[in-house]
């Protein structure tokens, strides 16, 4: 009898848990959709968000350039060394050029840039907006009859859409360059072999694919943290939680989007 009651209790708890989780998810989905629609509506107020967008883009873009180039450089070097380790004696050396360029442009450039920016931009946006929420600055804007969407959210999202693709292209270039130098030093590949290999497998779609991915990743590292920061609650602890949640959510979204976009654009 006691065991049955216990089992019933567990089932009830499980149901409550699932119910609560479903309600919370539905709530997030609804709020996120409303926020997104508000952002689209806010696009008409370009006089407000445009100057702030350039301000944000400058701060975020220059601030992230060094770390993005650094990581892309290391990724290019490691790809080159691994290509050498796997190919030497089995495949023609020019394949290294193909592997390095394709790996950087198709995958490492956009994904690594996205993940770095999820940490840099995502945490920054969530913490900024979260602090503004808990210190009532967002309420203050609203109380002055001004839209937080066009004053705070749109400039951040649009700045990300401007900056992330550009940074991704820089990362591609840097990874390719460092990979090339490393291949020359460690594998002894000639410039001609490297460029031949890189060009042999290259298609213009590869660059488009990289660019398209970077725009989606830009959306993930800006819109999600903005949503999380905008809905922050419970003081300093809430701001900390918002920043970490934003980074995790944006990073996971990037990996999910990576799979979906690859399947859609390159999948057979």
């Amino acid at each position, binding site marked *: 009898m006691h065991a049955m009651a216990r089992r019933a209790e567990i089932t009830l708890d499980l149901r409550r848990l699932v119910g609560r989780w479903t309600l919370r998810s539905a709530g997030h989905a609804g709020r996120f959709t409303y926020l997104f629609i508000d952002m689209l509506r806010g696009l008409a107020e370009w006089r407000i968000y445009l100057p702030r967008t350039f301000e944000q883009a400058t701060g975020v873009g220059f601030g992230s350039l060094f770390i993005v180039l650094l990581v892309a450089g290391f990724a290019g070097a490691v790809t080159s060394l691994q290509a050498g380790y796997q190919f030497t004696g089995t495949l023609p050396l020019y394949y290294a050029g193909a592997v390095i360029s394709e790996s950087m442009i198709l995958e490492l450039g956009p994904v690594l840039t996205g993940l770095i920016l999820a940490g840099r931009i995502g945490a920054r946006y969530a913490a900024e907006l979260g602090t503004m929420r808990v*210190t009532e*600055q967002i*309420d*203050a804007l609203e*109380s*002055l*009859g001004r839209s937080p969407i066009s004053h705070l959210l749109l400039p951040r999202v649009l700045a990300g859409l401007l900056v992330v693709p550009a940074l991704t292209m820089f990362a591609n270039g840097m990874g390719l360059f460092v990979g090339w130098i490393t291949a020359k030093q460690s594998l002894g590949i000639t410039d001609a072999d490297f460029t031949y290999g890189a060009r042999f497998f290259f298609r213009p779609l590869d660059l488009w694919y990289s660019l398209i991915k970077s725009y989606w990743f830009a959306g993930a590292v800006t819109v999600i943290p903005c949503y999380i920061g905008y809905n922050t609650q419970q003081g300093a602890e809430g701001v900390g939680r918002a920043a970490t949640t934003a980074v995790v959510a944006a990073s996971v979204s990037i990996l999910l989007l990576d799979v979906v976009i690859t399947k859609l654009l390159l999948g057979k």
Partner: protein
Amino acid sequence: MIQLSDIHKRFLDNVVLDGVSLEVRDGETLALLGPSGVGKSVTLKMINGLLRPDAGDVVVDGLHVQRLKRGELSELRSRIGYVFQYGALFDSDTVAENIRLGITDETCYSDDGYCADRVRECLRLVNLAPDVAEKYPAELSGGMKKRVGIARAIAGKPKYLLYDEPTSGLDPVNADVIDGLVERLRDELGVTSVVVSHDVRGSFRVADRVALLWQSKIRAVGTPEQILGSRDAAVLQFLERDLEMSLIQAESVANVRKDGS
């Protein structure tokens, strides 16, 4: 006129307001008193639509606040100045930029000359020197932040002013300055004000009428004299507690003075 009729509000299981009705007449200053966490700020936020009641009606200037569309609500908010408890100043903007944001008329807001004059005028009204305009909020004291918050709230020449705990966190001297400012703005600008506070002494000084929010309901409304003369148990309990606080405060001020001398 501001009218709240049978307002109900709860956050999860916590009932904050349970059938609150209140009326603020044009030109008067009403102080909404009550212990901490009783729903005073929630009530204030409902007046300018920052929060929506679960049930009941909030009417400002004949407009039903929760039925207003986005544009209409913005228009109404431009007639309501809101002074936040901790100032809620924008950290990355200077004092001048903060006050300028309070200018709600878009034509005036775009006019740099008008804005500079208005910022100076608002700083004068809150007894701040013109050179404060170029400072950032982080460079200001708590009392100055409150005054800048008030300056921003009056920059748009509002008809209504809502003060959320304007003297909380301030020492008695600064609290007196802010109370004096509330009185002065009422007299000079002729605004209708609602002052949310748990400071009885200051509220009695600035208010034409006082309302006591007690256990989610309005327990008493009247002139300061009527409230002081009330025999209601909740009113007496609240006033006694405040009297104790005042004595503790006076004692600590006296100690500080003694240590200083």
